[in-house]
C-alpha cells in the first residue's frame, strides 16, 4: 500500500503560538478528521489508503429521503423542493435512473406552482427563486414532455419580471432578500426554460430603465466581489464560497465564461481566494477565510474550478478520443489543476461518507449525513473526477444561451488515488445536472415560439 502523503496526515508546517476561538475549533476539526484521513478508522481501503464509495448505502439513504419523512422535518416544509433536487441529482450521479420518479414528481410539484408564476416551497406558500430553481432542475432530471409541460412559462416570465430589481439583481421572492443566489437561480431558470428576455413593462426594473431580464446583472455581481477576492451574498458583505459559485454560474450563463468572468470579476484575486479555501491536512474546502472545512464546499468551491479553468483557458479543442483512451498521453500532459484533486478526493471519501447503515454524505465526521450534503459532496466528487472543457462559445450571447462543453475522465498527472469503480457520473458545471438532461430541456423549450 502506498503511504498516505504527510500533507494529509500531519499539521501544517506553520502554526502561530497565539490561540483564539477560531484556532481552537480548527484544531478540533483536524483532530476529528485525522483518524479518517490516516486510515485508523475500520473499513477496507484501496492502495492509496482511501475507502471506497459506499454507493449502495448512499443510494438507499437518498431513496429514504424521498419517502415519507417524520414530523421533525417540518423545518423543511418551505424547502421541500430542495429535497427533490438534492436526492434526484445525487441518485443520478450515482448512476441511478430517476425517470421512475417522473409521475410522482409531477404530481408533487403541481400544487406548488402559483398562478402568479413560479413555484413555492409548498402548497399555499409564496413563490421563491430557490424552490423554483430546485423544481425546474428536478423536472429536467426526470425529463420528458409531461414534466416540462408542468411549468407555466408565461406566468414564470411575469413573476421573474417582478423580482428583477432596479439595480439589476433579483429578489428571492416578492418582497424577499436580494442576493447572488437569486442572480444564479434566475439565470438558470431563464436559460433552461428559454424564457423571453424582454422585461415585463410592469416590472420595477423596467421603470428604472432596464428592458432585459438579464441586463445589469453582471454589473450587480461585480459589486459583490470583496477586497478578499471572493464573492459575497450582496455588495458589502463577507466573501463566501457558495456565492462564488453562484456568481460564476450566473456569469457563465450571461455569456461564455472566458468572456463574462473577466468582464465582471477580478479573476486573479478570485482565484487566489478560491485557492485559499482548500485546507490541509483535511484536503476539503472551507466557505470563508478562517472557517472550517465542510463537505458541501466540495461543490460550492470545488465546483468553481471548471468554470475558472474555462475562464482562463478560453476555447479549447475537445479531448480527442485517442487521448481519452490513452492514459500514457494524458499522464504525460501533467496535472495542470489549480487545486489539489487528491486532497479533495481524500476529504470526500475518507471524511464525508457515513459508513454506518444510515449511509449518505456529510459536512464532516462529527456531523450527520443529510440530503443536502449528499448532493453537494457527490457533485464535488464528480467534478474532481472529470475534466470539463469549453469547446464552442456562443457567437451571439443575445441569441444563444449556452456554450458547448465536453467532458472526459480526469486522468492527467499520472496518479489516480481513487479506484475506477468509484468514479461517478458527470454533471454540467453550470446547471449541476447531467449535460444531456440540461440539453433536453433546453431544446424542448427552444423549439417553442412564444409561450
Amino acid at each position, binding site marked *: 500500500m502506498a503511504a498516505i502523503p504527510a500533507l494529509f496526515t500531519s499539521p501544517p508546517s506553520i502554526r502561530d503560538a497565539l490561540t483564539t*476561538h477560531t484556532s481552537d475549533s480548527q484544531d478540533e476539526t483536524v483532530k476529528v478528521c485525522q483518524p479518517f484521513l490516516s486510515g485508523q478508522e475500520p473499513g477496507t481501503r484501496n492502495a492509496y489508503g482511501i475507502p471506497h464509495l459506499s454507493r449502495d448505502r448512499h443510494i438507499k439513504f437518498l431513496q429514504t429521503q424521498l419517502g415519507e419523512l417524520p414530523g421533525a422535518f417540518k423545518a423543511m416544509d418551505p424547502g421541500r423542493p430542495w429535497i427533490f433536487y438534492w436526492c434526484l441529482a445525487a441518485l443520478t450521479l450515482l448512476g441511478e435512473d430517476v425517470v421512475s420518479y417522473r409521475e410522482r*414528481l409531477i404530481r408533487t410539484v403541481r400544487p406548488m406552482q402559483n398562478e402568479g408564476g413560479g413555484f413555492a416551497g409548498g*402548497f399555499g406558500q409564496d413563490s421563491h427563486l430557490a424552490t423554483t430553481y430546485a423544481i425546474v432542475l428536478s423536472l429536467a432530471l426526470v425529463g420528458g414532455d409531461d414534466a416540462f409541460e408542468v411549468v407555466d412559462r408565461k406566468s414564470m416570465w411575469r413573476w421573474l419580471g417582478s423580482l428583477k430589481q432596479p439595480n439589476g439583481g433579483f429578489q428571492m421572492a416578492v418582497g424577499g432578500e436580494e442576493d447572488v443566489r437569486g442572480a444564479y437561480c434566475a439565470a438558470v431558470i431563464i436559460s433552461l426554460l428559454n424564457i423571453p428576455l424582454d422585461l415585463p413593462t410592469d416590472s420595477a426594473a423596467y421603470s428604472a430603465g432596464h428592458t432585459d431580464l438579464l441586463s445589469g446583472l453582471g454589473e450587480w455581481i461585480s459589486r459583490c466581489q470583496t477586497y478578499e477576492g471572493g464573492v459575497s451574498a450582496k455588495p458589502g458583505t463577507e466573501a463566501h464560497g457558495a456565492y462564488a459559485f453562484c456568481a460564476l454560474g450566473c456569469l457563465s450563463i450571461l455569456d461564455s465564461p472566458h468572456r463574462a468572468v473577466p468582464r465582471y470579476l477580478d479573476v486573479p484575486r478570485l*482565484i487566489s481566494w478560491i485557492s485559499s479555501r482548500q485546507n490541509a491536512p483535511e484536503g476539503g474546502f472551507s466557505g*470563508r*477565510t478562517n472557517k472550517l472545512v465542510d463537505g458541501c464546499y466540495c461543490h460550492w468551491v470545488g465546483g468553481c474550478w471548471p468554470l475558472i479553468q474555462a475562464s482562463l483557458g478560453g476555447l479549447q479543442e475537445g479531448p480527442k478520443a485517442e487521448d481519452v483512451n490513452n492514459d500514457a498521453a494524458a499522464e504525460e500532459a501533467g496535472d495542470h489543476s489549480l487545486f489539489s484533486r487528491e486532497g479533495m478526493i481524500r476529504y470526500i471519501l475518507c471524511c464525508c461518507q457515513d459508513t454506518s447503515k444510515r449511509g449518505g454524505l456529510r459536512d464532516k465526521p462529527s456531523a450527520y449525513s443529510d440530503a443536502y450534503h449528499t448532493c453537494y459532496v457527490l457533485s464535488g466528487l464528480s467534478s474532481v473526477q472529470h475534466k470539463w472543457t469549453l469547446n464552442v462559445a456562443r457567437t451571439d450571447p443575445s441569441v444563444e444561451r449556452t456554450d458547448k462543453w465536453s467532458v472526459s475522465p480526469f486522468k492527467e498527472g499520472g496518479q489516480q488515488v481513487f479506484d475506477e469503480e468509484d468514479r461517478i457520473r458527470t454533471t454540467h458545471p453550470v446547471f449541476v445536472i447531467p449535460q444531456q438532461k440540461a440539453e433536453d430541456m433546453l431544446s424542448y423549450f427552444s423549439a417553442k415560439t412564444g409561450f
Partner: protein
Amino acid sequence: MAPKSKASSKAAPIPESKAEPPPETVGERSTQRFYKTNTLQKRCEEVGLAALTPAEKKTYSHAQLIIPVSQDRVPLSIKAEREYWKQVSKENLPIRRLRRNYDWGQDRQGRQLDTYKLADFGERSLKQARLAALDILHRRFLAKRDKARKEGSELPAEEVEEEKKTRAAMAVLRKELYGKITGPLAQDPAWDDVVPIPQAEPEDALARIAYPDDYAEAVSYLRAVMATEELSERCLRLTQLVINMNPAHYTVWLYRFKIVKALELPILDEIEWLNRVALQNLKNYQIWHHRQLLLDYYLPSISSDTVAVKKLAKSETEFISRILEEDTKNYHVWSYRQYLVGKLELWTPAELGAAQNMIEDDVRNNSAWSHRFFVVFSNPKETTPGSLPTATDPKVPVATIDRELAYAKEKIALAPQNQSSWNYLRGVLVKSGRDFATLAEFTEQFVSGLGEESEDVKSSHALDLLAEIYKAKGDKEKAKLCLERLAAKWDPVREGYWKYQIAELEK
C-alpha cells in the same frame, strides 16, 4: 291445516341450561343475549338437531322457518300474513331476537369494541353522552352568536371563554373516543368563520412530511387567510404561532410584514418581539430580512427626529453585538449590521470600535475584518461612490490608509499565519493605489534565508505577498523562488495554484 291438539301445539318447555357466569365483556354479553333470545339454539349446537326431542325439534324448526318473513325477506299477502301471525302467537315463537355476530365496531386504536370490559364500555358510552351534551351547548353558542351578530352585537367575553372551555372538553373527548384531532385554532371561536385549507398533495408525494398536528392546522389556517388577503390582529397572532413552530417558513414572514404595515403596528414593539425570536433561533436568516424590511419602513417616519434615530441606532447595534457574542461569525447578522451602517450612516468611530472589539477577541474572525473594511471603505464621506472593493479609490484620505495599514500590520504581528489580517492589508493597499513594494520591508520580516539551509518562514501569506512584490519590482527570479518554496514546503496543498503563478510569471 289440520287442527292440532292444544297440548302438542304449544312449544315444549325450554330445558334450563346450566347457570352461566355473568358476562365480562361486551362480546360475551352479546353472545349470552343471543342465546337468550334464540330459543333452543344453544342446545341444538351442543347436542345436534337429531338429538332434540320431537317437541324441541318442532319448536326449533318452526322458529327457523319464521325468520325470512320476520326479517321482511319474504313478502306475504295480507291473508297469508294474518295466518302467519296467528301461528306465531299460537306457538309463542320468538319473533324478536338478536342476531349473532353483531358488529360493535372498533375504537381509534383499532381494538374491537366487543373485547371491552363492561365497565370500560360503560365509561365510553358515558363519554359519548357527555360529548353529545357538549355539542348541544356548542350549537346553542353558535346560534346565539349568529343571532347577536344579526343584531349587530357580539356575545360577552365570558360566554366566548365558556365556549372555548366547551370546545376544549369536546376536543379531548373526540380524541379519546375517535382519535380525531381538533386543533387549538378550531377550538377558538375567533376562527369559526375561516375554513382552513389543508395541504393539497397526493398520497405518494415525494419527501412527504408527517406534519405534527398543531403545525398542519396552523398552516391550513394560514393558507386560508392568505388566500383572502386578510390583514388583521388575529392573522398577526397566527403568524407568530407559525413562526414559533417553524421560523424557516419564509412566506409567513413576508405575510407578517404586510400585516404590520396594514395595522400600522408600533415598529419598536415588533422589533422587541423579534429580538426574542432571534435569540431563540440564531441560525435563522428570515428574521434578519424581516428586520431590514421593518427598518426600511420605519426610518422615513422618524428621519427628522435625530434623537429617535440615534436611539434606534444604539438599540440596534447593542442587540446585534449581543447576538454576535453568541455566534461570532453569523453571516446574516453581520450582513444586517452592514445594512444598518449604510442605512443609519454609522460611519462612526463607535462602529469601527465594535468591529475592533471583535477582532481583539479573536484576531482570526474574518467577519469582523470584513465589517471593518466595509465601515472604512464604504463611508461616503471618505470614498468615491460606487468604487468597487477590489479597486483603487483615490478619494480615501492618506491618514485613513495609514491608520488601516498600521492596524493590519499590528494584528499580523500577533499571529503572522492569520490570513484575515493579510487579506485586509492587501485590500487596503489596493484601495490606496500604493506600490506593493511599500510593503516589502514589513513582509520580509516573516521570511528569512529563503532557499537556503536556514530557511525560516513565519507566514505563507507573507511569502505569497512577497512573490507579488518581487514580481511588481520586476525581480522574477525572487518571485519564482517564493512560489516554488510555497509549493514545495510552506503551502503544498495549493501546489497547483503556486505552479500556475510561476507559469504566469513566465508570460
